[in-house]
């Protein structure tokens, strides 16, 4: 059972919002005493996802939650956009696949950095990516 302890939504539409979002995520991670390496993993994952959102969907919303399960606390981030959607999620999750001009590491790399990774996308409607990183783990 995962309980949500706090919830906070951040709109990301401009590049300055990205910096603000990263600071908020860091604050939350520090508050639940997440270790430095896990903080770095979480922030890097957030950085990848927020870039995708900016590049492919012109921005969206990120919901920052503190969650708890038993004695373990964690941070859950939900990135939702109303962009074009991803036609082939399996391909997008493969290393080296990109429809843009990037390295194609964003999604598969992000998945490796977090504990839980969930992606839902509908062409023409948008994409929702949820990641969860436990403070210890």
């Amino acid at each position: 059972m995962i309980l949500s302890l706090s919830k906070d939504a951040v709109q990301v539409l401009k590049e300055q919002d990205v910096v603000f979002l990263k600071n908020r995520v860091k604050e939350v991670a520090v508050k639940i005493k997440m270790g430095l390496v896990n903080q770095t993993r979480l922030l890097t994952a957030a950085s990848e996802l927020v870039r995708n959102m900016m590049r492919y969907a012109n921005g969206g919303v990120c919901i920052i939650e503190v969650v708890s399960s038993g004695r373990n606390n964690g941070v859950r981030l939900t990135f939702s956009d109303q962009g074009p959607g991803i036609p082939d999620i399996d391909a997008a999750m493969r290393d080296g696949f990109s429809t843009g001009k990037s390295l194609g590491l964003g999604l598969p790399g992000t998945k490796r950095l977090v504990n839980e990774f969930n992606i839902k996308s509908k062409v023409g409607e948008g994409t929702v990516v949820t990641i969860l990183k436990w403070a210890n783990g």
Partner: protein
Amino acid sequence: MDKIPILRMGNFLLVTIQVDLYDRLALNLEADLVQMVNKTGAKGVLIDISAVSIVDSFMGRIIGNIASMSKILDAETVVVGMQPAVAITLIELGLPLKGVHTALDMEKGMDMLKSMIGFTGGDVEDQTDDDSIIE
């Protein structure tokens, strides 16, 4: 608009990134640095990232680009001072930064650059330049 300063020291260019990079800043740095290599004929570029707490795939790519671009302009690039957590994250992300020379700190990076370009005191003629940062 933030700008990352590029210092010239003899044959080398020094860049110390003291803020967390965001995309636009990293792109500007890439452009500025390649311009500077071309303008000054620098033989080496030293990038200190000890104050950078996050390097994601985009910024990793920019670092790789800077190294390759400098290389074809006849300058070597050494990245120094990477935080351990950043190294862990980069590898897990799948970005081993191949082709980028790294060193633990500024001093070791400087030694590395000197040995790579076969340091023979070849910067003597540069001493007359008044925009030289030291000596």
